[in-house]
């Protein structure tokens, strides 16, 4: 049942235009990508290439001007607000550059939050949140608030929270952007491990070249279009030639 879908994410001629006074900014302009279940894909490109816009479209956070996004073969542009909220809660886990933990809640409460929306029973919420926080190495920080945690620890809580409802996909927008080199590497490795362990598809939008080593494929965006797509094998060959 769980392996029913070959593609977790599929976009068809996806476009998003913004009006800036008299100008129309084409943040995305006809993007076609297919991301397989269990893949680890990085979206790279310079600032303003459309990485975050693509992230928002795939995450069901914003509506496209044109084209379609399919998550587990469901066209999300056809969903209403209620269905979209359900999709965000159950199918997608979000990780952000600025961690975005709820500041007034403890680590374990943050991880339990998506499970509340999904209607998980209280005992099960506590058990699962504890298990996930232990998995990301924060078993001794359950009752700390975000201000009492380091950046790396906050991002670990965010990753645990993203996994709370066993989503099909983890969307990470610059997950290492606010972290130092070593901590960033730890976060990347953690994402990769969880990707293999739980067969969860990981899509990251990133500038971080460290991400290349762990990605199955890299999608290069430029000016709202896919410039090229590289698989890991190709990257390895390039590296040898260089």
């Amino acid at each position, binding site marked *: 049942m769980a392996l029913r879908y070959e593609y977790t994410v599929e976009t068809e001629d996806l476009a998003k235009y913004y009006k800036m006074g008299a100008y129309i900014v084409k943040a995305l302009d006809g993007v076609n990508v297919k991301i397989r279940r269990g893949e680890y894909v990085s979206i790279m490109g310079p600032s303003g290439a459309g990485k975050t816009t693509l992230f928002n479209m795939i995450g069901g956070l914003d509506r496209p001007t044109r084209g379609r996004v399919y998550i*587990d073969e*469901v066209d999300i542009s056809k969903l209403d607000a209620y269905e979209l909220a359900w999709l965000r809660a159950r199918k997608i886990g979000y990780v952000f550059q600025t961690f975005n933990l709820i500041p007034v809640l403890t680590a374990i409460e943050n991880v339990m939050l998506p499970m509340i*929306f999904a209607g998980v029973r209280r005992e099960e919420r506590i058990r699962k949140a504890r298990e996930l926080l232990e998995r990301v190495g924060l078993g001794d920080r359950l009752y700390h608030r975000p201000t009492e945690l380091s950046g790396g620890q906050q991002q670990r809580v965010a990753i645990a929270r993203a996994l709370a409802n066993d989503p099909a996909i983890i969307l990470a927008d610059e997950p290492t952007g606010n972290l130092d080199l070593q901590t960033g590497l730890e976060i990347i490795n953690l994402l990769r491990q969880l990707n293999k362990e739980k067969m969860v598809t990981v899509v990251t939008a990133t500038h971080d070249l460290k991400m290349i080593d762990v990605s199955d494929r890299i999608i290069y965006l430029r000016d709202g279009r896919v410039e090229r797509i590289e698989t890991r094998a190709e990257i390895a060959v390039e590296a040898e030639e260089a």
Partner: protein
Amino acid sequence: MAQSVEIGEIRLPVAEAFRISLENIRRRFTRVAITTASVTLGIAFFVSLMMMASFQAAAGGAGIQPYMYWLLFISLLVCGVGITNSMLIAVAERYKEIGTYKCLGALDRHILEMFLMEALLVGGIGGLTGYLVGLVAALVYAIANPGVGIANAVRAMISGNPSIPLGNLMPASVALFALGVGIAVLLSLIATLYPAYYAAKLNPAEALRYEI
């Protein structure tokens, strides 16, 4: 493409919304305290004015005059605008948080619920403290004024007063307590309605982009 999705239920139990609102109030104490102070002042003015007038009436004075209601109306209006303003700031400082809640599956009405729950608590606490402050102020007035005196004040408080709403059903002090807390909660809810609606309608992508 197959449209084979079973959409399940999305919910935020009231107990959880209440708990989150309570944490918000505890952790953002200063801002909430200022909002609550605005409610407290409005209600204290209402309670003290009504009590002083009923004390005077008990001492053979004029009692509650119609112009007082106008005074109270204006003061509560000012208080309501103050709450709206401070709730708008509360929404602005939580843009990113609201975006995050929506990413985690919150519906518009859950965001609305959380802010209104906070308003309910602020109104309740503000009404309570406002009543106490107003009561003390009125008693100080009675003691300081030989023409009124504490005896008249106590008599006015424990007896009914038909010129106060609800005053023919219960002792004046109880009627003013019910009115004070009731008005405070109602005022806080009405004043928060617009900011909360605004927060609930935020587009998650835009809310997340917002940097404070």
